[in-house]
């Protein structure tokens, strides 16, 4: 546990009293929690607890009706996706959201779109800054490709890849942006044990090497308890637990939510 405490820094993201509804359906109700710099923060809960909605609120895909989001000191009613990306938040999706018509390399290159400053005229002529930027960003992307060990599928269209590799490419696209915070929506869902181990290793390596803050949704309790520093537990859109893995494990409400309880 000591390493974890050393790793975690200041609070960089704080959500206060977030409520979100679609029409009459309440997805999130009055949820507050925070994320510290460099930590791995897990969000767990049964299906339909509002975990993905939570991530969508953090990076601005959904706009909550109530509550505030404070990211790096800036307090807002809601984020928008571009502002989130520009301030260093990257994410992966539960149902893989790769660009199916493009190769692995192009997919990962899109992750660097915010770093490219040349305009369309320069890119159409393909000289000077446009060419130079293409080269620099390609180099960066190749580093990510090496890091995630996907060199061999660089030029393959993503649609032809097996599920596990697609997940890895999606992580690569997120990493290519050199994010300071990474939102991972069930990065290990549907994987076999080996693939899960690989993915765990990558997540921990990224966290260690680059100090990237992680917010992670995962169903595999073993994984969550192993790699996360602190855990938020959601059930029916409400927060029912928050703390270190050990604290959460002992929380009666959490146990009830998972095992079911006679009301």
């Amino acid at each position, binding site marked *: 546990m000591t390493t974890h405490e050393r790793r975690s820094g200041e609070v960089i993201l704080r959500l206060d009293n977030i409520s979100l509804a679609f029409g009459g359906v309440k997805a999130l109700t009055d949820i507050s929690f925070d994320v510290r710099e460099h930590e791995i923060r897990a969000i767990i809960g049964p299906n339909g607890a509002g975990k993905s909605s939570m991530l969508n609120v953090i990076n601005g*895909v959904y706009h909550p009706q109530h509550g505030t989001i404070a990211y790096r000191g800036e307090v807002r009613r809601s984020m928008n996706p571009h502002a989130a990306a520009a301030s260093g938040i990257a994410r992966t999706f539960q149902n893989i959201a790769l660009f199916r018509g493009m190769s692995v390399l192009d997919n990962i290159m899109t992750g660097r779109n915010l770093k490219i400053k040349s305009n369309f005229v320069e890119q159409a002529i*393909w000289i000077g800054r446009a060419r130079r930027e293409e080269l620099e960003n390609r180099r960066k992307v190749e580093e990510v490709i090496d890091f995630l060990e996907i060199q061999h599928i660089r030029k393959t269209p993503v649609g032809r890849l097996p599920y596990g590799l697609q997940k890895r490419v999606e992580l690569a*696209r997120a990493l290519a942006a050199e994010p300071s915070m990474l939102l991972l929506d069930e990065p290990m869902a549907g994987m076999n044990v080996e693939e899960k181990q690989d993915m765990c290793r990558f997540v921990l390596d990224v966290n260690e090497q680059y100090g990237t803050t992680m917010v992670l949704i995962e169903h595999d309790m073993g994984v969550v308890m192993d790699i996360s520093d602190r855990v938020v537990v959601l059930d029916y859109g409400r927060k029912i637990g928050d703390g270190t893995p050990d604290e959460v494990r002992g929380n009666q409400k959490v146990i009830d939510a998972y095992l079911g309880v006679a009301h």
Partner: protein
Amino acid sequence: MFYREAGQFKTNYIDDSAIFPIRQDRIGFAIILLLAFVAVPLFATPYIFSAILIPFLILALAAIGLNILTGYCGQLSLGTAAFMAVGAFASYNFMLRVPGMPILLAFLCGGVMAAGVGIVFGLPSLRIRGFYLAVATLAAQFFIVWCLAKVGWFSNYSSSGVITAQQVEILGYQFRTPASKYLLVLGIVSIMALGAKNLARSNVGRSWMAVRDMDIAAEVIGIRLMPAKLLAFAISSFYAGVAGALYAYMYLGTVEPEAYNLDLSFRILFMIIIGGVGTVLGSFLGSAFIALLPIALSLLVGFLENSIHLSVSKSMTSNLELMTFGGLIIFFLIVEPHGLARLWQIGKEKLRLWPFPH
């Protein structure tokens, strides 16, 4: 056996992202360019220039424009011809009203005007998608053509909006012969095709494809949907606009707004479906296919008439043409949705392995 990349090593990333990474392709392409710029002008007849090659190149350019919007950015448009009309009439007015206007600059300005109009009609794409948008682009098609025909100023108050393109002259040289016109069109189209290819392989092109494939994911990695879509509309319309100006100045000479009707828009759409959606090569293949198909059909009909004395009327031929177009669209969408360009790709893969099966 000869089409192998063995022994060709790329030592930097720029080589790796070249348009033709394989040496044999580069040689092949150089030969095609040489043929197009040198051999064809030496041997082709005026009929071939003005009835086949010039319209083929111009419509290929328009198809590249549509491919940028539909193939790369995923926004279906049924109004390409209207943007061509804007380019043509704008160029005409720049030539007419600005003394000493160089023709190439007039084409450029025509393209820019078309881009502006394209942005306006692209605005609905921010709120609607799919065929709702396709139907909305029909508004552009009908409105623009009506506007050019009704507002006399655009056609210098000629009756029913007919304009006669001014003589094309660059640095004192007058482009009168079909061969010289062909070379000018070929030059412009080649440069613009290269530009499109460059866009497709750099960040702008990737952003478009990202928007096409999954817009929410694109937004999340920081691509702004509005500028990306509007840029696609602008550049697509720019290409269409220049193609429209060339269509008036280099092909028809005298043109009315009705020449840029819905039928032409559909023709260009057919080109990219048959040629290949989302490829520059496909635009050329599709345009060639659509240009050559009526000729092939009339040859076939002529052959039938001679051999089995079947009398085929003129209207029958044109109906057969309609049916063939329609049938081919259905066929390609069912059997090879990526069009001729994909078939070309598969052919090359096969050739790499030949004579071995795998």
